[in-house]
């Protein structure tokens, strides 16, 4: 018989991975078009390239995480070790905090309180959650939440979508008010993450059962 099972199975797994890339690439491109279209229509913040380097770097890191790393893990295109997955989660949280608050983050963390606006329903909160829901619908329709067996994969996809909606609002809104940035950008992302995770887990459960 002289079969090479290892070679055949690895080739099959590689083909499956390529099929997943082909299947989900249109959804990713569509997501990019949606957020890009929003930024074109609503306009980028005027001080985008004049922000502190660290804050801008954190925003670029968030883009990288939400467009590449988190979807890749969630869709089963990349299988980092557990330690690296923990690093990714911590990096995402830290990058989002720095991206939203910049130097104000240090003052808040060292007990300086949150000056400026308190939590309230405003345009940025609505835009973040709204954009997140559009991305969420895209994820559900494309089957992204059910691409892997483990339910935790849905959390990676939801995390990526939430970060994408968050960074869009950060790149649109020029506010320097730490209170607004904390509640209406970062808080909105957290709220979206919770809602998207719940919806993602339900979608995972239902779509995997089909």
């Amino acid at each position: 018989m002289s079969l090479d099972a290892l070679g055949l199975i690895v080739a099959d797994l590689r083909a499956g991975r390529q099929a997943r890339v082909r299947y989900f690439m249109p959804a990713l491109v569509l997501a990019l078009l949606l957020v890009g279209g929003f930024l074109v229509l609503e306009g980028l913040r005027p001080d985008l390239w004049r922000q502190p380097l660290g804050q801008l770097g954190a925003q670029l890191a968030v883009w990288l995480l939400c467009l590449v790393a988190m979807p890749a893990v969630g869709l089963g295109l990349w299988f980092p070790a557990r330690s690296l997955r923990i690093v990714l989660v911590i990096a995402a949280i830290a990058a989002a905090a720095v991206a939203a608050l910049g130097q104000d983050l240090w003052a808040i963390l060292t007990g300086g309180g949150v000056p400026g606006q308190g939590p309230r329903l405003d345009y940025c909160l609505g835009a973040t959650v709204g954009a997140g829901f559009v991305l969420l619908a895209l994820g559900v329709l494309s089957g992204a939440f059910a691409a892997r067996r483990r339910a935790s994969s849905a959390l990676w996809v939801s995390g990526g979508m939430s970060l994408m909606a968050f960074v869009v609002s950060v790149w649109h809104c020029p506010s320097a008010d730490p209170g607004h940035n904390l509640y209406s950008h970062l808080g909105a992302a957290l709220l979206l993450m919770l809602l998207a995770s719940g919806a993602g887990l339900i979608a995972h459960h239902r779509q995997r059962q089909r």
Partner: protein
Amino acid sequence: MSVAQSQPGLAVLMDRYLDGDQRAFGQLHAALSPPIRGLLGKLVRDNATAEDLLQATLLKAHLARDGFVVRGPHPDAAVQAWYTTIARNLALDHLRAQIRERKRRAEPGEDRDPVEEIATDLPSIEEWQVDRDTAAEITRRVHEALAQLPAAQREVVELHKLAGLSMAEISERLQIREGAVRVRAHRAYKALARALGPGMSLVAMHLLGTGGRA
């Protein structure tokens, strides 16, 4: 075969393999191939055939991988048991195909079922010098001892020794945890050993497990 103890990451590797991770499959292959090859070699007693059956086992498992579900408290052992069951079934199919082929050719003296020739750690009937009458007597006593067992324990012994199912298969058949099956089997065999005496119970188990169907 003690992979479950020496490879604590089998279930994790399996999980990642099922999600499409090539590297995890490579590691799983490296961990499982030697013990499965050893099992198959012991069953078919031919290295080349064992190697072919190993490849077939991996392919069959790959095609059936969506049906793999971890049951019981030991996920690593469940992975190993799943592959082992597939390998053993393939080996038995191979041996049965051999005997069918031999019967078809009608070669004199070649009509013994090779399944009965599967190597076992227990001594053969001949080595125990058990003659037909003694075997019948033992079988009768085993029947009596089995009848004394609680129904739940008797069921496990019958499925394990008479039907030849593994603990994992019995667990699946009875819809109880594999650990519970093992506890029942342990208690049943202890009760049988008490009823039959240690030497007699070993012979009885051998008879049950091979030709002397009780």
